[in-house]
């Protein structure tokens, strides 16, 4: 097992009277894609959002590279190196690829946006990642669903993240596009030694792509499985036991 990159210890979170997470702990290693599965309301998305700085936890601690971190906003988490990919891409369809990739972290000269440098950096990154995008000046709404999700992933990679959080990244994609996106993510996590947490409903994909599977139920982690030792039937049984 490689070195730990992210550790979550005893995280609890309630929304009013509803307890979304109870004493959740997990460890993520460098180069590992960890899957979290569970029925709707099991707490998967809440856990990801706490790690991404969207919600503060009621109690518990988060350690990034063994140092404790506290995020007050998603921007804090992004600055620390935790990036999230969303089911619905979270892109601005009317902006072009370059503008979307740098949104919130534009490069400026004085008061003015410096697209020349942004495009140069983006082109270098595309070459480095062997990424295929039709044109970086194309508005995102002219791209296919798969290409849009690739742009969203590209945005998370621009500033060398340490942890990638993937909240149902392929839910809106065709089978072909899903495979392309997941193969890319998997290879990326391996080669760059990033930690990845992957929440999805497609159990076959989970078994195919993840290195380890955590099963959540009613806000708790109730089982840990290795993909080669389990099957969808067993996972469904664990989720609904």
């Amino acid at each position: 097992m490689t070195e730990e990159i992210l550790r979550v210890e005893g995280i609890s979170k309630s929304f009013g009277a509803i307890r979304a997470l109870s004493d959740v702990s997990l460890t993520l290693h460098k180069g590992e894609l960890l899957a979290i599965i569970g029925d709707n309301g099991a707490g998967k998305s809440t856990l990801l959002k706490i790690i991404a700085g969207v919600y503060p936890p009621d109690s518990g601690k988060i350690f990034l590279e063994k140092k404790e971190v506290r995020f007050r906003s998603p921007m804090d988490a992004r600055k620390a190196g935790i990036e999230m990919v969303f089911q619905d891409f979270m892109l601005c369809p009317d902006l072009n690829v370059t503008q979307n990739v740098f949104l919130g972290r534009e490069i400026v000269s004085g008061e003015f946006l410096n697209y020349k440098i942004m495009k140069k950096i983006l082109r270098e990154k595309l070459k480095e990642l062997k990424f295929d995008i039709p044109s970086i000046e194309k508005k995102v709404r002219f791209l296919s669903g798969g290409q849009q999700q690739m742009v969203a992933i590209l945005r998370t990679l621009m500033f060398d993240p340490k942890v990638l959080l993937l909240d149902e990244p392929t839910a809106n994609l065709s089978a072909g596009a899903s495979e392309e996106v997941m193969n890319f993510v998997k290879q990326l996590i391996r080669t760059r030694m990033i930690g990845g947490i992957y929440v999805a409903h497609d159990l076959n994909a989970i078994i195919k792509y993840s290195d380890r599977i955590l099963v959540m139920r009613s806000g708790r982690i109730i089982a840990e499985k290795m993909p080669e030792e389990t099957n969808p039937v067993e996972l469904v049984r664990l989720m609904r036991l």
Partner: protein
Amino acid sequence: MARNTFYSKLLTTIKEKYASIDELKSLTGFIGILILAAVVTPQFYLPQNITMLLGQVSVIAIAALGEAFVILSGSIDLSVGSIIGLANVVAAILIAQYNFSPYMALFSVMTIGGIIGLTNGIFVTRLRIPSFVVTLGTLTIVRGIAYIISGGLNIPVYNEEFLGLNEVFYGVPIIFWIYLIALVVLTIFFEKTRLGLYVRATGSNELAVRNLGVDNSGVKNLAFVFSGVCSAIAGYVLGVRLGAGYPHSGLGYELDVIAAVVVGGVALTGGTGSLIATAIGAFIMTSILNIMVLAGIGGFMQYVVRGIILLVAALAMRRAGVFVK
């Protein structure tokens, strides 16, 4: 077969390029109107008519600049006509009754416009009331204030410096120069700065912008402030043209301003469009009015034609994919 694929790909590329450049659609429409004018009313091109047209377009075009910011950010501002009326009245009172210099009066009405815009913004972003409802409220309130402070009476202004802005400089009315300066400054802001980009991004996908840590409420407030300030300048310019403050001036202008923005190709859903396109939209609406007057088409009929133009423009934008979101 391969040839067909090549041509269909080429056609798709051209279509996409055409749809992706915000100004092209409205520019095509404007060129069509200029050709129509050459055929139907050649007197449209007389220098004195062009000068008059430039004066006419200034008021709507200035207000449309601010409105474009609001619409691009995904909201709408219905209070522009009333702010135009209030600014017109306040500028007239300050100059005629309180001996303000025209520049101090301009600065004062811009401040008032900015405060009204900020109020609109705060109601939308903090109190989470839809902009349509908020600005419908301020439309009535601000118009009421214009009537109250003027006592419902007209206020003539005899200040030479103020009326001097009606003069022509290099064949172009000074008020149009004011518009051009505002257009250049705001276009640079919109196209080249972070905040300008965030206005469009907020209109395109507000949730995404917020998730990335951008202050989308601040961006919206800024757009409403711009709209208030631009409407105030428009009201001041209207005062220059009228030589007085009329409490009912600018009545119904919000529709002309929004029509100019939409005809220019700015999507009412936000995110798509540019200020140059809005300028073209203002020219289209004003030129049509001018051509109809020259062609002897009566005032009642003008309403019908302008409405039809708006619908045709909306249809054209839809076909180009501008409104598909």
